[in-house]
């Protein structure tokens, strides 16, 4: 946490090198997270850029005692992604890029399953399973009570499990 305070202090002071290091460290993971949320590689890159730019140009709102700087970053990223979705809904057809991920068929299936969940469930599962965010950090990012995190994570896991099982069954039938 002390490191986060130091990094934050440098960001506020517009230390370009410190911010670039922060960017280099977190951008790939944030980009992957956002890609899971918006479903499009380029859009995720744009949203990630907006997220970092917001922190760089308007560094405020981070409270070190509430959680890690990374959680704060992902929280802003999530809000930016939500804004992106709102814009898509009013201006363009929704973008989906489910086949854009590299990897095996199994990878594609699990990501497809993830994409079928609600935005909040995707966020929860990604941040918990892949980013390893704590319940307290998830509460901060999603702006919900910690106790609610547990119940919603369960709901998200259960939803994913059901979709995954249906997908597996369908794949089995195709093979037969």
């Amino acid at each position, binding site marked *: 946490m002390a490191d986060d305070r130091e990094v934050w202090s440098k960001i506020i002071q*517009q230390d*370009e090198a410190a*911010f*670039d290091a922060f*960017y*280099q460290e977190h*951008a*790939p*993971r944030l*980009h*992957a997270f956002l*890609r*899971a949320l918006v479903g499009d590689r380029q859009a995720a*890159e744009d949203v990630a*850029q907006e997220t*970092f730019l917001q922190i*760089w*140009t308007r560094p405020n709102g981070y409270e070190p005692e509430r959680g890690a700087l990374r959680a704060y970053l992902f929280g802003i990223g999530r809000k930016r992604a939500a804004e992106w979705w709102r814009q898509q809904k009013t201006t363009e057809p929704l973008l989906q890029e489910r086949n854009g*991920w*590299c*990897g095996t068929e*199994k*990878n*594609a299936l*699990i*990501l497809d399953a*993830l994409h079928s969940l609600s935005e909040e469930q995707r966020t929860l*599962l*990604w941040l*918990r*399973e*892949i980013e390893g965010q704590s*319940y307290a950090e998830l509460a901060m990012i999603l702006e919900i009570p910690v106790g609610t995190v*547990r*119940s919603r*994570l*369960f709901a998200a*896991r*259960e939803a*994913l*499990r059901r979709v*995954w099982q249906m997908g597996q069954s369908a794949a089995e039938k195709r093979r037969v």
Partner: protein
Amino acid sequence: MANGTVGSRKEESMTCDQAAEFVSALCDGETIPRVAAEHLSGCEACRTLLRSYSDLGAELRFAASVALTEEAPVRVWRQRPGIWRNWWRKGWEGMRIPRFVFASMLVGIVVLGSGLAVIGVHARGEGNVILLKISPPGGQPIVCPLSTVDKKLNSCAVVSRALTFEVKALSKDGDRVNVGVRAKYESPQIGNSYDSLASIEGLPEEQYSFEPGKALRVDVAGLGALTITGEWIDHIPVMIGGGQNLDPGPDELRIVSPVLLRGKEVAGDMEGGSALADKPGESVNIFLPGEGQFQFSLSQTPGAVQAHVQLNRISFESNGQLYALVTGVPITREKQVWVRHDANFKPSGGAEDGSIGVTDFANAAPDRPIR
């Protein structure tokens, strides 16, 4: 899911549905109530569920790991306004072109943008356009391109509160050009008209034979002499506003809103900064925090390396790194310039902001900072 009940005592027993949320919490390493733990220990269905959740988590992490191998695109993080306003100020102080010209030049650069169509200019061309540089006493020069063939493009006028003049190309006479000049000077005072050529319409046109390469002096009553110099070119050049020619003059090294690239990365963006070196022995100096000072000149200076010029780009190598200085307008007519890079340069007074300016390196102390 099965809906069994496990528990030694009825009040502490838990169904699978009730325990399911704690199964999920257990995946996350959270502490769960004893009664939930007891249920899990004796319920195969819940243990299966726990494995399912764990497996799904593993699948997600594996799938995501593919995306996580991608590198972040290179970004440049500029400081918030403050230092960049400072760049503007530094450029403002360092430039030699008239300030109103500079202001309009910036607008011009924005308009021209990526579509800069630069035409080659020959120092001693056989063109039909005479490019005049008219310098009032103590004032900044005004550039006028005059066609000797196109009557619509054969005159140039300047109107101000004090000085009004019009120069017209009348005819070409070998290497010379016959020009007609009307000029009037009034002491600047409130009430002077400065918005039309009406004040000189009744004046007789004085005719001169002008030879490029030589200075022509035109006396204006009450002011002194206008000094006119010029050269033949083969086109009407693109002007950037305010009479500033897009094409650089014969001995000009002009750096406008430069961006310095180190390899493929932006090492510094001096948007709004500008400097013009147009006299022998002058150089344009750029100081960038973290990069040091770069001294650009048309003539060789001690310790300088040769740099290649392509219109609005200067490419060079220093300390094993490839650099390119890219500007908004063409830099010089020369094919090469000289660059001296002092990576350890520190501005006097410990100031850490970047700066751009012009110095007379022939007479200045070697490391005198230009601010």
